[in-house]
């Protein structure tokens, strides 16, 4: 295992984070710091369900992971990701590249006032599918699933693109939310980590401001269609 001194994982306990930790183990590249937020949110509550999946180790526990690999961990309890305590903590760290893994939370403008880059893996093709639940919209419109790695910016999903990857539809579409979505993000994260390790500098492509669509949380009827469910 190789520790990347400039890399920090900024996360909360979720399926996505557990998929990311699994991916880091698989590619042998680990962060030198983990900032673990304990933040009550709907996404967190849903993601707390721990179940077995063949796609990643969903039983990984953040503290044990950090301890077993000698990674420093900072845990913060908060009900607001934009709490100044967290922003000050981020400002004070030496790592300049953060992997963002806090479902359902949006970084406020204050996070972008200092020279830290936040890597986010969006489960949709950018700039075509910005916003919420892009997997389902993408399946409905193109029958495709794609993930895009970006650097976060103040404007949601409009940051520079680091990498993209297309994935097949899962055999069981009902696993998308808690298994397949975290897994595709983790697969792309491995590509990004590998580039970060080999090239030190990540090459990016800026998103054109004109092209692109922002989607809002999908209605359950459209979700059913994307899942391939039919009337009886």
């Amino acid at each position, binding site marked *: 295992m190789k520790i990347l001194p400039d890399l920090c994982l900024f996360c909360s306990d979720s399926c996505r984070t557990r998929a990311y930790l699994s991916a880091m183990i698989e590619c042998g590249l680990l962060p030198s710091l983990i900032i673990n937020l304990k933040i009550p949110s709907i996404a967190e509550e849903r993601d707390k369900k721990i179940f077995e999946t063949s796609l990643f180790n969903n039983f990984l526990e953040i503290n044990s992971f950090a301890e077993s690999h000698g990674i420093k961990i900072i845990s913060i309890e908060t009900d607001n990701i934009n709490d100044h305590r967290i922003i000050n903590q981020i400002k004070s760290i030496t790592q300049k590249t953060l992997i963002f893994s806090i479902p359902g939370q949006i970084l406020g403008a204050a996070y972008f006032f200092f020279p830290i880059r936040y890597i986010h893996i969006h489960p949709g093709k950018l700039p075509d599918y910005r916003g919420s639940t892009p997997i389902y919209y993408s399946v409905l419109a193109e*029958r495709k699933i794609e993930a895009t790695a970006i650097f976060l910016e103040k404007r949601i999903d409009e940051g520079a693109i680091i990498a993209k990857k297309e994935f097949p539809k899962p055999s069981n579409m009902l696993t998308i939310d808690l298994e397949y979505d975290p897994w595709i993000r983790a697969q792309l994260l491995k590509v990004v980590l590998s580039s970060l390790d080999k090239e030190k500098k990540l090459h990016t492509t800026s998103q054109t401001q004109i092209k692109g669509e922002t*989607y809002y949380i999908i209605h359950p009827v*459209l979700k059913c269609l994307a899942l391939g469910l039919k009337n009886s």
Partner: protein
Amino acid sequence: MYSNESWESFLDLYTNNRELVCKQIVDKRKPITRDDQFIFPPFSEAFKSVDIIDDLTKCEQFTENSLRYLHLMAQKLETTKKILENYPSISPHEVDISSYIKLSYSFSKHAYSSLNLKILNVLLKLNDKLIFYKNSWLGSSTEFLMFHSLSNEMNSIKKIKKVL
């Protein structure tokens, strides 16, 4: 409306619910539309009055300009759940439900003709709410618009099912 339903039975519940509401609507006459080029105000005026919604309801076909308004309304509704920026001082609490019905009908026309997923998504959400408040509009002068909105919505879903 949909709570505690499994994904597998969800579409049945949706279809049954929508069909039941359509049966309860008495006035099913066809809305009158015109192919006039409606003149819309500048975007800065978009959310200040419901007049634009009246014009969108009457559009036979959406022009590039009217479509921009339709999308703007959809975005406004998705993000704020409202259709106006500031509510009229004489009625500070609610814009009349008929404005929401007119908007729903306008969304449905475009959703059916284009299968635009963003518009269909906001239409489904808006119609869920309007059905929840159906006692406020059943038997009213705008119930026929609601009938056509729900029909267009269900037909859009059928079209997507065929394509998939």
